[in-house]
């Protein structure tokens, strides 16, 4: 069912991403930041997608630790990898935006630092899976739970601590001319995320089945 939906989701995401630059071009600049604000549309959408993926990874990792379900493990692995991919986008587009609006590429404030730490935790999840050998599923699941639990903290960090980064209040208070464009981009990222999750989970399941068959062949 999901496999048949993937091409449709990918085409829908391509349409949304294809039209997004025209909407972004016609959207207003921001009063204090100017035109560079337009990075917001992809930066925040990918950040929210990364946080969603982090939560999915934590839930699937917890399910794996509790029930040793292989499906949960495959979902956790897919979500961790996608958290790294979307996190990389956030960590590259953020400094490009900051250079113009703050005057510097990087600042060690709560939001920026906690995002980097969470991204590094998901990277360690993937490194564990690749190099830890037998039992890496359990080790990485524990890392996945901790990394995913960071997600709400990363989101609320701008409200808890004083930071250079804009607060969470900017999203509900977006004016209509900006909100529509941002929601359009967010929908594109979410469509792509669901499609990539389905594909990556299928890859993890196929790899596990292949490993099983290799073992059967050796026996």
């Amino acid at each position: 069912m999901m496999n048949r939906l993937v091409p449709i989701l990918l085409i829908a995401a391509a349409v949304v991403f294809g039209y997004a630059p025209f909407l972004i071009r016609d959207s207003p600049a921001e009063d204090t930041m100017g035109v560079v604000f337009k990075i917001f549309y992809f930066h925040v959408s990918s950040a929210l997608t990364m946080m969603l993926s982090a939560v999915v990874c934590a839930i699937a990792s917890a399910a794996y630790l509790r029930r040793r379900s292989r499906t949960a493990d495959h979902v956790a692995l897919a979500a961790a990898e996608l958290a790294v991919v979307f996190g990389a986008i956030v960590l590259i587009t953020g400094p490009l935006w900051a250079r113009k609006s703050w005057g510097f590429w990087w600042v060690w404030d709560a939001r920026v630092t906690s995002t980097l730490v969470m991204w590094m935790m998901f990277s360690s999840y993937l490194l564990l899976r690749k190099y830890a050998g037998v039992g890496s599923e359990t080790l990485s699941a524990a890392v996945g739970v901790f990394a995913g639990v960071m997600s709400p903290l990363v989101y609320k960090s701008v409200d808890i601590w004083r930071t250079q980064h804009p607060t969470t209040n900017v999203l509900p208070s977006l004016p209509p001319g900006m909100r529509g464009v941002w929601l359009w981009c967010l929908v594109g990222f979410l469509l792509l995320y669901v499609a990539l999750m389905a594909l990556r989970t299928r890859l993890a399941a196929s790899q596990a089945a292949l490993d099983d068959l290799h073992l059967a062949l050796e026996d």
Partner: protein
Amino acid sequence: MPLLLFALAQGQGQFVPFTGGSVGQETLPATPLIYAAYAVVWLVLLFYVFTLWRKLGKVERELTDVAARVRTGK
């Protein structure tokens, strides 16, 4: 003065659309940064989709091949 510094240290709480006409007087040009940001997004996502698709194809081909070998006992 400390109160002013405290206020300045706060993150921005709201985005307001610019209505002042031209925004062409900015010192550091924003356009290359915007193009760079969007190029990064497109390149990262296209590269990931491409590698994922290739890996999936390779693993599924190998899976079919090995499954056939297991069935025939070779």
